[in-house]
């Protein structure tokens, strides 16, 4: 299969199908509506099911049902709608059900606007809903990577029995790039789901899926089990891209589409003889703490750039633990930082100015 020119939102949909996800429950919201429409058209062609729910709340609970029945299933939304799904995501985490939830983020808080944003970082990486839980979060920076990470997301979901978030932004959802779907895809056939409630068919005792533990000791045990799982995910599933960090005096930490803009700014700086490297977290949770911590020992300063008022920068600072100064540059409200703006921030680092 050769290259095709596709829109980000469509790529997410097609990538999910390639990853063996034939069930999608969704609700339209800009800027991810093309994904819902794509699934509505495409899933019946491959023998799958698309259903438009009456709300995001309902969609995530349909996902809960389909996941209970042991199927690979996805839903998607954008920031305000994603907030509505938080209740269901907490239940999925509690009941240990696998599912992939897409957030093509837009400006907030409240209704905000439909322009791209990274201001849902806290929400997706810190649990988001009630209770002690994390969801693995994967943040692609280009459309080809969406394919890889969508497949990864389903694999992680099934392997660890956990909801997984695929986080993009309006820019990623709306842009077009050539992508190539490889023959080899992760279809999930190798995951035994003997816990699924599908009807017993006379095979063993009835199964129960629940997140309720009246007994405090048992609930603590469940929490211990979840935490142990999260440690395992941290050990095995941390993903990061590192560029030109070895000899760098300065490092930019940025993720998603912003990392691409930062990369252009870095190239410009390198042409001017400033040694700047890039660390791009691909998994936002688990966060690539180690590489950032290690790098911070050898550089003069770290700059974090986000389309937010400063969210991931908190994790960067936690990883750095004061080993080097960490500054932040962010734009909000759907404004995308420009290459020049980031370049100017790099120059400030050289002058020892930190914002």
């Amino acid at each position, binding site marked *: 299969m050769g290259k095709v020119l596709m829109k980000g939102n469509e790529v997410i949909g097609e990538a999910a199908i390639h990853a063996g996800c034939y069930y999608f429950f969704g609700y339209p919201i800009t800027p991810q509506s093309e994904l819902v429409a794509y699934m509505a058209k495409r899933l019946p062609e491959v023998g799958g099911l698309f259903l438009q729910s009456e709300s995001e709340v309902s969609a995530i609970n349909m996902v809960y049902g389909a996941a209970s029945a042991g199927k690979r299933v996805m839903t998607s939304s954008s920031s305000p709608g994603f907030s509505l799904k938080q209740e269901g995501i907490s239940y999925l985490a509690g009941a240990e059900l696998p599912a992939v939830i897409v957030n093509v983020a837009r400006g907030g808080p409240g209704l905000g606007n439909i322009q791209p944003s990274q201001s849902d970082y806290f929400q997706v990486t810190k649990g988001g809903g009630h209770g002690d839980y994390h969801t693995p979060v994967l943040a692609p920076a280009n459309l080809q990577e969406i394919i890889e990470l969508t497949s990864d997301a389903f694999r992680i979901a099934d392997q660890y029995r956990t909801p997984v978030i695929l986080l993009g932004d309006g820019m990623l959802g709306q842009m077009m790039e050539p992508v190539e779907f490889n023959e080899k895809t992760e279809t999930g056939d190798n995951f035994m789901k003997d816990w699924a409630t599908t009807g017993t068919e006379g095979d063993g005792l009835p199964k129960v899926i629940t997140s309720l*533990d*009246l*007994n*405090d000791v*048992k609930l603590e045990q469940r929490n211990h089990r979840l935490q142990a799982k999260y440690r395992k995910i941290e050990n095995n599933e941390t993903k990061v891209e590192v560029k030109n960090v070895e000899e760098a005096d300065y490092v930019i930490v940025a993720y998603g589409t912003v990392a691409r803009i930062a990369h252009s700014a870095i190239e410009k700086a390198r042409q001017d003889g400033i040694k700047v490297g890039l660390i791009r977290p691909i998994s936002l949770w688990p966060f690539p703490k180690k590489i950032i911590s290690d790098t911070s020992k050898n550089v003069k300063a770290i700059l974090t750039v986000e389309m937010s008022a400063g969210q991931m920068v908190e994790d960067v600072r936690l990883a750095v633990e004061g080993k080097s100064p960490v500054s932040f540059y962010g734009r909000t409200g759907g404004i995308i930082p420009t290459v020049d703006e980031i370049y100017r921030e790099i120059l400030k680092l050289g002058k020892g100015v930190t914002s």
Partner: protein
Amino acid sequence: MESNRIIVTGHYGSGKTEYALHEALQKEGSQIYLCDLDVINPYFRSRDYKEELEVNGVNLVAPKGDLMKADLPIVTGEVAMRLNEKDATVIIDVGGDEDGATVLGQFAPVIEEMPYEFLFIANMNRPSVATAEKMISVIRAIELNSRLHVTGIIHNTHLCGEAVTSEEIHHGETVCQEVSKKLGVPLVATMIEEELYKEISESLIAKEQLIIFKRRLRSPWYV
């Protein structure tokens, strides 16, 4: 108290459970049952003292196993069963206010078959009963919902372990006496915590019978 049916009621934070535990642990005999009928609040209930009760020969009647801690208004069938045992001593710890008292309604006919004590615990430091008028209104509501009559008032002015002066206790008694007079219901006793009693016994001019009790319901940070 002659009766072997004692129902403990009151407003939230009155000290119902403290009294019910104290009373149950005082009793002697083999058939003592403390029924935890608090279906309103999932915290600070008699059921949390199951072990101490059992060691002292008191049977706790409450949902079993994991259900004990459920956010479910479970009333076990055992309550009716024990109420039908004539020789058993049954102490019922009811949830707060008239909402908690509703649960008694279903047992009113069987309770009424025998003599019973229906005690209202009053903590004057709780705003909802801080005046005679307010207290009477709470008692009336509890009587209406439980379909039973309050037979006695137990005065228990406290601040959850913080110091209370003998003046406050005296004032509390005065209000309770007023209520007692207006309703024609006796003021049975004044409860006072052991440690507090030691501190203020000299200045305490209690007119009523005193119940000196050891406080059991404590916050986890208490040492």
